């Protein structure tokens, strides 16, 4: 029986070492990939949460933009200035068969809510349909410029929209 050569003694641990190194690097690259994927996903989700509310409201506002049909006021009192409002609300009005209907958009109980009803009727904030989860929502109006502030998570964003219809700041 031949004794094991010194080359063999050195070769086997070296092969094992190379194999271990290969496995570790493979795992590291996989971890890096997973981490990048998680980061990209988290950023996309955060951007979606922050922007979806503003984009939704911007689309709504543009849709209803007719003279005197869009304004900000209080949920209970459409004649009250938004700065003095207890519950700032965006009013989107439309005429259906000669009768005026209003869609009130406001924030209550962790949700952006919508309430569609004939003008002049009294409702409680909880009566509206929950549309999107949010942490804060506020409306302000200076002439024809409506500013919406929405916060979902840590950071809030503002969006200013100018009513294109002349004399659009109705109440």
């Amino acid at each position: 029986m031949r004794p094991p050569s010194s080359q063999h003694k050195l070769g086997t641990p070296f092969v094992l070492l190379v194999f271990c190194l290969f496995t570790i690097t493979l795992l590291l690259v996989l971890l890096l990939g997973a981490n990048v994927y998680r980061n990209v996903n988290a950023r996309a989700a955060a951007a979606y949460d922050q922007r979806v509310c503003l984009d939704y409201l911007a689309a709504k506002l543009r849709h209803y933009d007719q003279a005197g049909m869009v304004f900000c006021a209080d949920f209970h009192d459409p004649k009250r200035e938004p700065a003095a409002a207890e519950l700032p609300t965006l009013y989107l009005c439309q005429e259906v068969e000669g009768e005026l209907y209003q869609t009130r958009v406001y924030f209550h109980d962790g949700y952006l809510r919508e309430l569609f009803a004939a003008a002049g009727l009294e409702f409680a904030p909880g009566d509206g349909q929950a549309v999107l989860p949010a942490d804060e929502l506020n409306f302000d109006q200076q002439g024809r410029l409506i500013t919406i502030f929405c916060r979902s998570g840590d950071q809030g964003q503002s969006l200013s929209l100018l009513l294109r219809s002349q004399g659009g700041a109705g109440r």
Partner: protein
Amino acid sequence: MNTDRRATLFLIEQLLAILFFALTAAICVQIFVSSQLMTLTGEARGEAALQAQNVAESYKACAGDLAAVAEQQGGSIDGSGLRQYFDPNWQLCGQEAASYTLTLAATSEPADPVALRRAQLEVIDNQGRVLLAFPVAGREVE
């Protein structure tokens, strides 16, 4: 002798695998980095678009009065127009801490108050890359 040869063959196989793996890993890491950079750039462009839209809408509402826009949206007026500085979280800040700069520069200011006023809006990052740029116009509505 056979065991030696087997170990050597295994070592060569391992080295070839590592070589192939190193090449593919280098490509993968490049893809990961570029995807991260694309996400960051996309996010910055989205935020820049939001801030630019706010200023543009305000410019229209103020009929091209830059001082009134600065009062509504924040920022300062200098020789080249309205400037807003933003930190990495897109909050208004001073020039020293700025990562992004929005500039609204008047390109046409007619004496007639009801004539159309024009301006160029631009958002750049602190490396001078233009995130977005577009012209805006506004005039007094009677």
